[in-house]
């Protein structure tokens, strides 16, 4: 693979991660949401793989494999299982309408670029372009989180933020120290598990996952 093709592929995959984020915003069904997330994680895994190939750093291969196994296989399965088990209503029920959300997210993408711009301007690592994308993904994930009602979609949104972070970690630093990466994976995994536990508890107590009903604590 030529150097150029390689960088194009890497950039392309990064673009796919961003694009899937937009899809996530547009998704209206819970299962769809999980599906798109799987796709994003897959793209992220591939991205890591190509970066590993490009830099020759072995531990990034491991990261790629872990990403695909945990984020593209185990976590989506777990999410699907939870959704089935507690029979969430299938609609996502966004707080902000989808067209407007998409518009906002476009704005966020621009802001991401604006923020990353000074860094890109004096950087010399080729993948630094990806910084803008990863900031955008993080912001979109954040937006997703703030604009969704269901506890489940919040979990997905958090995972999207994590994906954005990984994109950044892999692209601009060519991976963090291995022990940190492993720790983070473990952490993400446990976080999702614990959130799952709480989703069950909440469902049992409130008989809904709609966070609108969780407004007892206020001033």
């Amino acid at each position, binding site marked *: 693979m030529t150097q150029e093709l390689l960088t194009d592929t890497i950039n392309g995959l990064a673009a796919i991660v961003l694009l899937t984020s937009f899809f996530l915003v547009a998704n209206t069904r819970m299962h769809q949401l999980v599906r798109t997330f799987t796709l994003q994680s897959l793209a992220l895994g591939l991205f890591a793989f190509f970066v590993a190939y490009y830099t020759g750093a072995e531990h990034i291969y491991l990261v790629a494999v872990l990403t695909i196994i945990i984020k593209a296989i185990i976590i989506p399965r777990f999410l699907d299982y939870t959704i089935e088990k507690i029979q969430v209503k299938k609609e996502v029920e966004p707080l902000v309408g989808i067209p407007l959300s998409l518009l906002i997210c476009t704005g966020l993408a621009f802001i991401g670029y*604006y923020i990353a711009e000074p860094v890109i301007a004096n950087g010399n690592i080729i993948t630094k372009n990806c910084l803008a994308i990863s900031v955008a993904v993080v912001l979109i994930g*954040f937006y997703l989180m*703030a604009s*969704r009602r269901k506890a489940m979609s919040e979990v997905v949104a958090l995972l999207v933020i994590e994906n954005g972070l990984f994109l950044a970690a892999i692209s601009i630093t060519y991976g963090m120290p291995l022990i940190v990466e492993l720790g983070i994976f473990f952490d993400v995994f446990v976080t999702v598990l614990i959130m799952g536990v709480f989703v069950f508890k909440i469902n049992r107590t409130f008989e809904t996952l709609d*966070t609108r009903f969780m*407004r007892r604590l*206020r*001033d």
Partner: protein
Amino acid sequence: MMVSSMGVQSLGREMVGMYSQSLFQALIIILLIGAACAAILHKHAKLSRSVACSAVFISASAGAWLAIDVILNGPVQLGVSLATFFGDWTVSLDQIGGYFLLMVCMIMACVAVYSLGYLKEYDGKYDAGLMGGLLCLFFLSLVLVISSNNIIFFLISWELMSVLSFLLVMYEGRKEGVAPAGLLYLIMTHVGTAFITVSFLLMANYTGSYAFSDIAAGWASIPMDVRSVCFVFLLIGFGTKAGMVPVHIWLPAAHPAAPSNISALMSGVMVKMALIMMVRSFFLYLGPVQTWWGLAILLIGSISALVGVLNALKETDIKSTLAYSTVENMGIIFIGLGASLIFDSYGLTAFAALALIATLFHALNHAVFKALLFLGAGSVLHATHTRNMEAMGGLAKRMPYTSAAVLIGLLSMAAIPPLGGFVSEWLLFQSLLLSANIPDILIKIIIPVSIALLALTGALAATMAVRFFGTVFLARPRSERAEDAHESPRSMLIGMGFLAIMCFVLGLASFAILPYIDNVSASVLGVSITSQLVDGIFVSPISSDFSTMAPLLIAVLAIGILGLTWGMVRMYGGKQVVRETDTWDCGTPLGPRNEYTGTAFSSPLVRIFSPIYRSQTEIRTEFTASPYVKKRITYGLRFTDIFEKYFYRPLVRFITAVSKRLAVIQTGSIQAYLAYIFIMLLLLLVIFR
């Protein structure tokens, strides 16, 4: 003769100088032990009380000895210093400190004796150990406030004093209305402390030292405008404690809410702690005095005096009346302080000394008569279990000793010659009249106004005193409680009796006392005016051409004439035969409802000063079934405190309203919460990237 007396004195100086440290330590240790024992013995109320009161009494004696030594012979260093983050903490006692320490110890000793009997009241209802412990610690904090020579140490002692007095106010916390009063006090005094803190820290910042003595030496390194800022802050800060208008509002609420022995301490002594610090700060720490400082204090003092006395006139709660009278008297003291500062700023040091002596002397007099009056009020409260003067009456016959003591206190408060209160007010008038020499148009306008206000205040204070005594002690009882009143136990009477005697001593022997106060003022201003101030038994304001006065002679003459009259009437008219009959009643039997009450007594004045009182009367008539027969007419009188209505309430409302606006962010919606973080993140990134 001269030589030998000097020899004795210097010998005494050495001996007492050696002992002064141990005296001071003994004072502290006794108080701490007293507090601890009182707390430990709290199950045995009587024992605990006795221990605490004797600890206070013994310490007060030790403190008085120490104080007298310092006043006579100059400052002493007390105890070892403690190195801390904020410089060394040292304790020392200068002459002005000694003066106030003597005041504190004198009142404390009387209160300790009084408390022995008074506190019995609380047995079984409130914890005796708590009261004893707090009382000892409160005394300790007062001593530390006077003697600390380090800003931070001072602030700690100061706030300790506030907190302890707050706790003492809250002693009867379960009673209605006590908690809000105490709370208001705590908040106000804390705000005041904040101002003091900022001011002292600024001074420390510029002089580079936390020791008061270094600040006094290094004021020159503080820029002029910073010194003025410090002055304003200190005025607000200490003024809050002193009950200066308009930051006085806590005082009439909190002083009455406390148990009476504590009210006596708060009104008599604690407010004076603000005075000592003001005198020290304005004369010693802040460098050359600015004229406008004096003017500001003079003006505020005049207003405080008037506001205080007018409010005292309308109160029907005996202790509130006395508390407002404290506001008034602190106003009078401020007038003196302001005059002294003005004179000092013009370099008229001798006049400044006169005004300062008047101020300090009035502070002492006020401490004595106000403590006496609060103890008297406590005694009345003890007998009638009410603070409402409308429900009293006729107590002079039932409590002869208490009524005599209170009458003496009231006479001193109303500045009736030859008592102490009169002598200090006389000196104050004289020093104000001397201001004719100052060539400044603003002063020429403000001084006459404050003379007028002082005169008006004096007259109104007399009215207030008459009303107080007349309503509480004279005529017939207006309630059963007053009917069944009884004289207080002996310990209470002894405590009051000593203070009552002091009221006379301070007046009659003022010619002997003033030189020592001059000693104190000389330590501040550097000028001694004893030779001009006192001549034999005559007292005069610097120049004896201007005026002289001899309280002792006045008393002798008055007693002489009284005796003469009595003798002549006896000689001419024969033996006094007095027949006791009913009061003239126009034919209808007199009941308690026919009598003049306190409200009725002050009603004409309330009408005259209605723009200040903002009183609203409300007369409601209830009819029986027939519209021609009235069943009941109720008369309601409400007063609005203008400071409360136009400053404090709006302030609280404003802050609460703003808070409500701000607090809407805590909606309970997790999406909103996330959005805040999100927006904050975006903002910071876009602005600071």
